[in-house]
Every structure is written in C-alpha cells, then in structure tokens.
C-alpha cells in the first residue's frame, strides 16, 4: 500500500524538479494525444519543441518567441504576486483587453499628431486602464467581501463585449469603409511599438517584461512588500499579528497585476496586433496562469516558463501548417501541462512511502 508522509519542510530539490517532470510527462501524454489524432507523435513533438528554434523556418519563428513570451511573462509576473498571497486574479484577460483599449484609445484620440510623448502616454493609459479593471474586484473584495475570482472572471466577459463595442463603434477606423476594427497603429509612427532591433522580435513590451521580472525578484526577496505577500500566503493568521493590512495588500496585488496585464495588452495592440479588432486577444491572460504556476510563482521561473509556453504557441502554429495538427490540440496540451504540474507537486510536500499507515 502506498501512503503519504508530510515532509517537515517542502523539498527544495523537488520544487525545482517538478516543472521538468511535468513537462516531460506532458510531452508523453501529448504524444499519445497526437498519436490518437493520427499524427506521428515524435514528429509532432519535434515540430513543436525543436523546429521553431533550430528547424527550417527558424529564422522566421525565432523572433516570434520573444513576441509571444513578452505578454505571457508580463502578465504572469503580476498574477504570481497575488497568487503567492492567496489573492486570485484570474481575469487578466479582461485587464489585458481594457489596457489595450485605453492605450490604443489614447493614441487614436491624438491621431494624426506626431509627437514624442504619444507612446509614453499610451503606456500610462494602458497601465492605468488595466489597473482600474483589476481594482474593481479588489475594491469589491475589500469593501463587500466579494469573491475576487468570480468578479475578475465576470469582468473578462464584460471586457470582451466592451472590446466588440469599441471595435464597431467609438474606435472604428473612420476611413475603413465601415469594416469593424480601428486604424492600424503600425501605420502611425508615433504610436507604433516597433521592433527595437530589427529581426529579433524585441519590442518595448519585452523590455517591460524583463524589468518586471527584475523588479518582482527584488520585491519578493528584499522588500517588505514581498515579505508581506509571502507571509500572507503561507500563514495568514501570523500575517495579521505581524501587522500586515490585508485590505491594502489585496488592492496592491490586484492593482499591480491589472496594470501589468494592461501594459501587455497595450504593447500588443500597438505592435504585433496593430489594431483594436473584435478578437485581437488570443487568451494570453489565461495561458499566463499556466505560466505563473509552471514558473513556481518565482520571477526567474516565470521567465523560463513564459519562453516555454511561447514555444508551444509557435510550435503549435508550425505543426498546424506542416502536420495539420488542429490548433485546439495545443490548447489541450497547455491544459495538460498544468494538470501534471499540480499532480507532481505532491512530491514537494510529501514523501511517498511503501507500507501500512503507522499508528499515530
């Protein structure tokens, strides 16, 4: 009989190993899934994980890695701060949309003015928009005790409708012959979030993501806010005695993660996506949840996890082109990754022993 024995303290070694074990397990289960779909599993796995980096079309797909990883990392960093404190913002997708709408709105309001301050203004507008959207569940939780999980998620659906209303109404391109969607910001030099170094995919959003990683690393390790976040997550009662103001922490975490998600949306809409359309969002806000957990809620881990998940996006597209693998298969694959991660995580906190339960 197998039985579980709680470790006196979580295993360091396993906490580093579990993400790797989970990725390997997902590759095996994913290969099985691809086999069921009638594809060669080895070829599919190679197409997803190897070809985008070193294969035939890698000169095209390698820059995409940064383009996709940037928003994932930026959002996941914000989410991880909250998750560590037991504050569950799962509406990042909505904050991402609202940030994009505010950022693009700021630029489109000034069109066709060309000025140096437009892009910084868009950054501020995007961050504030996302922050405002994130603070709604925060404020409601603090003031009324409302569950932030449900409210932040409901606001995703509200944001999606708002996005459609904007693409069809206020932000619609007046020269667009009545088609939905805003002006293309890529053709508006002052607002275009262009590549900093051509051909690398490196744009300002990725710079922001890297800054966020460093700031979060310092905050969690050295700053009193990071200490309060960790304390609240690990021992809420002790945090109360230590003078942590939970309400303040809730607002900070939700506001901050909202602002980062809003920034991600703004950089995306001003760069790779180019315009506000009915569906420019592609679910980064939800995938970022997987990134946050796969990175063990640790900023450096999130950096690696973001790159890996970005790889599955690009590899998935490649597999769709070359092998005809359905795009939903990659979504299943990402979902499985989170499953395996949560399951394997058992080994961090427990030992598995053979034998009967000892009398306590």
């Amino acid at each position, binding site marked *: 009989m197998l039985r579980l024995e709680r470790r006196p303290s979580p295993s360091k070694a396993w906490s580093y190993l579990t993400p790797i074990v989970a990725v390997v397990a997902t590759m095996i289960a994913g290969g099985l899934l691809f086999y069921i779909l009638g594809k060669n599993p080895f070829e599919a796995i190679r197409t997803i994980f190897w070809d985008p980096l070193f294969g035939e079309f890698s000169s095209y797909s390698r820059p995409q890695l940064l383009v996709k990883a940037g928003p994932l990392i930026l959002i996941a960093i914000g989410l991880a701060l909250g998750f560590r404190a037991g504050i569950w913002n799962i509406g990042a997708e909505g904050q991402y949309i609202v940030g994009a709408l505010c950022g693009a709105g700021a630029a489109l309001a000034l069109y066709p003015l060309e000025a140096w301050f437009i892009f910084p203004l868009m950054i501020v507008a995007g961050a504030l928009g996302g922050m405002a959207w994130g603070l709604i569940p925060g404020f409601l939780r603090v003031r009324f005790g409302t569950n932030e999980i449900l409210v932040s998620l409901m606001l995703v*659906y509200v944001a999606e409708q708002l996005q459609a209303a904007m693409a069809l109404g206020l932000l619609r391109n007046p020269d667009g012959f009545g088609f939905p969607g805003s002006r293309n910001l890529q053709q508006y030099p002052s607002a275009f979030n262009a590549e900093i170094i051509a051909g690398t995919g490196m744009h300002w959003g990725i710079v922001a993501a890297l800054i966020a990683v460093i700031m979060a690393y310092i905050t969690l390790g050295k700053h009193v806010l990071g200490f309060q976040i960790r304390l609240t997550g690990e021992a809420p009662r002790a945090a109360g005695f230590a003078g942590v103001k939970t309400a303040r922490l809730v607002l900070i975490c939700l506001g901050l993660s909202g602002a980062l998600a809003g920034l991600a949306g703004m950089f995306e809409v001003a760069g790779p996506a180019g315009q506000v359309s009915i569906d420019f969002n592609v679910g980064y806000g939800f995938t970022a949840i997987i990134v946050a957990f796969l990175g063990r809620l640790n900023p450096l881990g999130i950096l690696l996890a973001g790159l890996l998940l970005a790889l599955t996006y690009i590899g998935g597209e490649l597999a769709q082109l070359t092998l005809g693998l359905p795009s939903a298969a990659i979504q299943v694959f990402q979902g499985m990754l*989170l499953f395996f991660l949560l399951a394997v995580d058992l080994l961090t906190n427990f030992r598995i022993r053979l034998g009967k339960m000892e009398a306590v």
Partner: protein
Amino acid sequence: MDLSAINPVLLIASLMVAATPIMLAAVGELVVEKAGVLNLGVEGMMIVGAIAGFATAVGTESPVLGFVVAALAGAVLSFLFVILTQYALANQVASGLALTLFGLGLSSLMGQSYVGIKPPSTPKLDMGFLSDLPVVGPILFSHDFMVYVGLFIITGTWAVLKYTRVGLILRAVGENHDAAHALGYKVVRVRVLAILFGGACSGLGGAYISLIRVPQWTEGMTAGAGWIALALVVFASWKPWRLLIGAYLYGGITVLQLNAQAAGARIPVEYLSMSPYLITILVLVFMSADRSRAPASLGRIFHASN
C-alpha cells in the same frame, strides 16, 4: 423600442428554459461545496458535456442518450479534479482552473467536425389537457423533459441534504472534516462522490445548452455559464430552494435582455450582452456581506495525517 412585442407568458416559459443549464450546473456545484470542496472547473465540465452530448445525440439520433453521455463525460472530467485535489492534495483553486482550461481545449478539439450541424430536436412533452390550459399550460406543462429533470434534481438535493443521513454526513464533512474523520466517516470517499455528482450535473447543464437552448455546437459556447453557476451558489447561500429562485431570476434577465435586443433597443447589442455578467457581479456584492453560511471547510485540503 416596442415593449408590447414581449409576451409575458412566453417570457416566463422561455426564462425557465434559459435558467435550466445554470440551474443544473449550480445544483451540482452546491453539493460539491456542501462537502467542503471548491471546484472552479464547472465551465470546463459544462463545455465538455456540451460537445459530448451533442456528438452522441447527432450520432445516435437520440437526445436522451446524448444527455446520459454528457453526464458521464462531466463526471469523467471531474475525476481528474478528484485525482488532483483528493489524492494528490493539490490546491483546489488552481486545479479547478486547470480543469476549465483543459476542458475548453478538449471540447474544441472534439467539436471540430460538428460545427454547423443541427442536433436531433428534443420534443416538448405533451401532457394532454394540462398543456392546453391557458397561461399555466405554456408556463408549466409544455417543456422538454430536461426542465423537469432539473427541477427533480433540485428538489431531490434539497430533500437529501435536509432530511437524510447521507445529507447529514455530507454536511458534516463540509463543515468540519477533521471532526467527521474522527467520527469515522470517510471524508475522501464522500467528497469524491460529491465531486462526481457535480461533474455529472455540469455535463447535463452543458448538453442542455448545445442540444436544446441554442441548439448547435460552437466553440466556447457556454460563454461563462459555468462561472455564473458558481456565483449562483453564493447567491443562494448554499440553499437549493434559493438556487431555484436565483436561476429563474437570472433566466429572466437573460431572456429580457435578448428580447430587448430583438425589439431593437437603442442601446448597442454589446452593452446588453454585458448585462448578465454585470448583474452577477452586483448580486455577488449584495450577497457576500454574510459569509457565515459558507461550509466551514470549504476549499481546505484534508489529509488524514494532520
């Protein structure tokens, strides 16, 4: 906008149809939460139920069989949640989210060849003279069988929770799992069964959307119904009869909103479509002041060694 175009009898009849999917999912989740488990995977289980039921109904031409398979599919998916939370002792919030993300992906993978197909129609029951009664007939006695199955499940859940030994044990496990364990009740077994029941109900709710409410298959068609069901449980303060009221209120809002769209209200469609979600938030705000009704062990991990 022409409000006189809205027929109150038809409105009430159609709100019962609109309410049924979230009512089914919510009553399942209510039982799960009463047992002390928070399963945020309702949305994922619903949508997998929706496509599983749809595919079966299309394949066999039998809506009834479709619902049976949908319930099974929901339960199978919820078993993944069982493995994670009851045996691997994983965080319930994260596991529920995983279930939803996985379910959304899985459903669109399963549903690829079913887009644009019409399912076999589910006949409305004909109860003879009862269905022919004015006003009462169309409102109460001329629905498809699932509306009555839903009402039966809700009544059954209420009776079992309130009057039976099984219900008492379930509530004990949800209120204080350590005490329940000390009394010799199998905490994990009770929870596993509750989660499977919740999964089956969610599957039924999902299939109701794809087979009767819409009826067709489109990706992501549950559109947050699972999350609204979760909010409904809070609204109902974990009481089945209040769940019924909440579901019908919600159904009424949805139907009114759709009628307003059809009647050509001057507000853009997108803002009307927001209303169910905004109202859900509003309801949560009003109902969350009193958290004392929540099962005391809700969301806590149980391991016999502690």
